[in-house]
């Protein structure tokens, strides 16, 4: 059994987001962190490793400095890392990215008993598309917004969180799950983990390594393979704090009407 975890290096949203003239992110000018939801996926994998002894393989697509982030994930306890990195892959949108990562996972191998874990979404794009697209392209079942994972042989039972409740979904391995922050609390890197993280295998999968994968074509990767065009990107304004009105129905309605009247809404 192995668990493949997809992680992404993202701009630290507490810093300023810079954009290139072509609309892609100017990563070089920003502080980077590991995407928070991806750390929940890593933790889920490591927790399964703690109980089953399975292998944890981490995969990221990004520029060469993303190796630093992969080393940090290895320092948390992952066993092996793959960095999918090539000029040909640059400028990929979610469609092209999932095409490339699915090819990389296919190359690593995903079979009976294996699970692919992704974070729900990355904080730089908030699309939540890459994980599900990878599952589609690998032709494996998927469960999104997972807040609990129970394993029983090759059966995986997940709690899938919805806006107004949750579903319990049972599926079979191999499958892909996208993880939300309610799933767990990510562990820290450990001192021995950091000491040993550069001794663990990290393989760079470049265009040459993946070009024979069926999913990789010149017109399915990079900017040319990306149907999305980014016109602009921006940090959305913070929502104001909400206000809870206490009291019985009539009282709160009167308070609410008064507040709306004060703001000249009614």
């Amino acid at each position: 059994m192995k668990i493949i975890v997809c992680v992404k290096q993202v701009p630290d949203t507490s810093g300023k987001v810079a954009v290139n003239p072509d609309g892609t992110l100017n990563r070089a000018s920003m502080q980077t962190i590991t995407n928070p939801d991806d750390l929940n996926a890593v933790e889920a994998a490591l927790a399964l490793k703690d109980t089953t002894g399975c292998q944890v393989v981490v995969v990221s697509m990004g520029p060469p400095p993303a190796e630093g982030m992969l080393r940090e994930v290895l320092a948390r306890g992952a066993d092996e890392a793959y960095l999918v990195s090539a000029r040909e892959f640059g400028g990929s949108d979610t469609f092209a990215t999932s095409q490339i990562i699915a090819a990389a996972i296919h190359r690593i191998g995903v079979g009976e008993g294996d699970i692919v874990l992704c974070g729900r979404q990355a904080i730089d794009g908030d699309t939540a598309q890459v994980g599900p697209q990878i599952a589609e392209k690998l032709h494996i079942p998927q469960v999104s917004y997972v807040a609990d994972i129970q394993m029983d042989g090759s059966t995986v039972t997940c709690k899938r969180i919805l806006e107004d409740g949750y579903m319990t979904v049972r599926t079979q391995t191999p499958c892909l799950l996208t993880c939300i922050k309610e799933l767990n609390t990510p562990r820290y890197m450990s001192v021995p983990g950091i000491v040993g993280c550069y001794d663990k295998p990290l393989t760079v999968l470049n265009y040459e390594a993946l070009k024979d994968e069926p999913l990789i074509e010149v017109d399915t990767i990079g900017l040319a393979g990306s149907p999305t065009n980014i016109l602009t990107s921006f940090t959305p304004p913070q929502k104001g704090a909400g206000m809870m009105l206490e009291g019985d129905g009539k009282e709160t309605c009167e308070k609410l009407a008064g507040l709306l009247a004060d703001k000249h809404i009614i």
Partner: protein
Amino acid sequence: MPYTDFALDRQHEMLRSMYREFAETEVKPLAAEIDETERFPMETVEKMAKLGMMGIYFPKEYGGAGADVLAYVMAIEELSKVCGTTGVVLSGHTSLCCAPIFENGTEEQKKKYLPRLCSGEWIGAFGLTEPNAGTDASGQQTTAVLDGDHYVLNGSKIFITNAGVANVFVVFAMTDPSQGNHGISAFIVERTFPGFSVGKPEKKMGIRGSSTCELIFEDCIVPKENLLGRENKGFKLAMCTLDGGRIGIAAQALGIGEGALDETIAYTKERVQFHRRLSQFQNTQFQIADMAAHLQAAQYLVYAAACKKGQHLPYSADAAMAKLVAAETASDVTRRCVQLFGGYGYTREYPVERMMRDAKITEIYEGTSEVMRMVIASSLKVN
């Protein structure tokens, strides 16, 4: 790592990042409470143990994390930025108990004690100071008499860091009182040995969450195989141990000063008087610039001493310089920080008054600043 290019390598940066996240998330929220209630933060020790922080620079074969001395002092620095107590808990355990056993112990002693200490299952402490043997450590009155297959210890030790919670103590006693310094021996004493007990905790000005107590030996039976190092060679062992310990305390002082400066920078950017933020006044800027410069100088001394120890180079004077400068800087910086906070700084609403109280001890324990000057002058053959 050689600390010559004034830049940390990637692994030390990762360690700092991990220590900082841990300190901010797990240690900082407890700091005011454990100071107020004088409570030992056992839950923090348990968390540090899980992360391999209780044996950072010892080899993996003895249960350590296999990192280096610089990685260890960075841990104390980051912990002490938010909590001086937690910094000294780790320093006392590592520098004063694990280190002398690792550096002087027999293979059997190392295999028996280090895995339990490095895993955090056991906490370590060190007992040298006595009521009449402070800076003059040669005035030991605790005695150890060989009786068949064991030594019998009688006497007491005071001001012992971690004493209330420790399972293992490196203790010094006179085996040949006629020889003065050359009649002192070191022993590994377990808390459960017959005739050993721990006295009441001291009421302290700072580092109030740390456990500081008396050790009492009443016909305490210590197996002969628990002699640490050679008989009558304990004084040198104690001095060498304190050389290493001083780097830990220097790192604690450095962290306390840095933590106070961080708090003060944030405060002066928010606090408005005379329609201007405090940070806009030149006095504030100059004070902060002075403090930052002195703290960076202290950091270089601390890291250099740590790297020399890690590379097995002579470091006694380096450790003394690091502790002297870091401790006096910490006291000066925290006092200035309280001043910049004004009345609020004097209250327990803000952490700088605690940091000022915590800083003072770094000028006293594991050798006072005056002793540091003696060590430095001696290294320069000024006598």
